[in-house]
């Protein structure tokens, strides 16, 4: 828990060139610092230079990176046009933390894998090459999708799961300029570089999240299953969205949380829904595909059936 300096950049451009560690809500960074997982020398405060605005325009919903989780969850336009986003946020963290945590920060929350958060253990994500005790150890909460022999840590945030299902983009700025990429492409599977969670470039900062409007987004939902009723990370969660016209599913979106090394899109579930009648049989058959490609670890095979059932319940809630 070394001391650090707090830097307040005059502009976003100055922030990207500072070379320091960005802080927005701070709810994850302070924990990582308290656990000696992060040892920032310079903390660069984005509060005064980042966007705190929520707007709806031709591109859809735009969420400034500094908007809090509570502000987005409660926003009337979000609740009506993109309900899965609001629901995912209200099932995240606690009311206090939702008043602090931000859109940009929530995308970048680091894994809650107990070995990563405890410097007494080896961890390839925290100390590359040191090993992964989770693969043969306590991996009940960890990923069944996307892991490698080096890391099976779960992406912990709920909101990005809903955002990936709804085809969100992120607007980024680095010292080299700006770019907009699909949120799904922000994340990286661990492969042989588990220390890198994202494809952010050095100095690159999240400016905003943009989510397209659609009929499916209006008919979306987020369902989270966890060990206790509230205030816990997901064992499995599902973000689903259906565009149903005269009983036929025109478009379907599905993604899973709590089970993947990143927000996990479920393309075979979507394919089993598109063009089909929105019948109980079609929903059941499609939800079975939620387990496609799963590679459970020693203590989390239960997540396959749990996810299939979570997806089915979520689909029923939006098809009704």
């Amino acid at each position, binding site marked *: 828990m070394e001391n*650090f300096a707090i830097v307040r950049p005059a502009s976003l451009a100055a922030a990207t060139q500072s070379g320091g560690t960005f802080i927005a809500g701070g709810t994850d960074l302070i924990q990582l610092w308290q656990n000696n997982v992060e040892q920032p020398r310079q903390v660069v405060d984005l509060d005064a230079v980042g966007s705190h605005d929520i707007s709806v325009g031709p591109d859809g919903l735009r969420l400034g990176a500094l908007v809090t989780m509570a502000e987005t969850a409660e926003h009337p336009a979000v609740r009506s046009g993109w309900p899965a986003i609001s629901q995912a946020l209200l099932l995240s963290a*606690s*009311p*206090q*933390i939702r008043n602090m945590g931000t859109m940009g920060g929530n995308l970048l929350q680091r894994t809650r894998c107990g070995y990563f958060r405890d410097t007494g253990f080896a961890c390839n994500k925290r100390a590359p090459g040191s090993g992964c005790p989770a693969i043969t150890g306590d991996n009940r909460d960890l990923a069944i999708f996307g892991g490698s022999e080096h890391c099976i840590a779960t992406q912990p945030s709920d909101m990005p799961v809903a955002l990936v299902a709804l085809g969100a983009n992120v607007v980024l700025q680095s010292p080299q300029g700006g770019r907009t990429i699909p949120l799904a492409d922000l994340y990286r599977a661990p492969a042989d570089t588990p220390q890198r969670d994202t494809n952010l470039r050095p100095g690159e900062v999240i400016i905003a999240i943009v989510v397209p409007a659609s009929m499916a987004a209006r008919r979306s939902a987020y369902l989270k299953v966890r060990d206790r009723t509230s205030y816990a990370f997901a064992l499995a969660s599902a973000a689903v969205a259906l565009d149903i016209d005269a009983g036929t599913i025109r478009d379907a979106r599905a993604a899973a949380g709590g089970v993947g090394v990143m927000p996990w899109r479920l393309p075979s579930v979507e394919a089993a829904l598109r063009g089909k009648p929105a019948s109980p049989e079609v929903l059941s058959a499609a939800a079975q595909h939620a387990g496609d490609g799963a590679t459970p670890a020693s203590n989390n095979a239960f997540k396959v059936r749990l996810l299939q059932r979570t997806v089915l319940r979520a689909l029923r809630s939006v098809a009704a």
Partner: protein
Amino acid sequence: MGVTRRGLLGGSAAIGVALPLLPAAAAPPPPDAAGEGTIPVTLHVNGQTLALNLEPRVTLLDALREQAGLTGTKKGCGHGSCGACTVHLDGKRVVSCLALAARCEGRAITTIEGLAQSGAQSGAHDGALHPMQAAFIEHDGYQCGYCTPGQIMSAVALVEEGHAGSDDEIREWMSGNICRCGAYPNIVDAVRDVADRQRS
């Protein structure tokens, strides 16, 4: 003569005495907040302006307890998991253990010590309890009392947010505050009582 538990534990001069009395699970002492590498930080707490010198790493929780002498706000987990350190920042509830004090400049901070004043209907700072404090006493909403300041700060915010519509809603929106004694049923009773009285 005249020595109280609060006075003994609360005074900064008594820290050396007080530390051995803390439970073994308590977090290590906060970083020295008056030494090298400090920056001036002005905080607005319970309507008062406090000029402090703090290291940038000092959390709002540690600044309140160790520098401002406001020990009503409790340190539980230090990781945002238990809610014992809940305060209001510009009217919204936050966990002060995950906020850096230096980033709270210019914002209105309310702690449990400031609640009695703001709750006095007359506006006079007569020390009258906030209705939520009175309700916790009336409904026996605590046992050891350690989580109580955070519970009350969260409960006051919950009612203002309009999330006291049912017992289930109260439980959900109080879920960021852990009570290891298990006083939850009486806490829900206290919150519902205050919300009902405000509606009637």
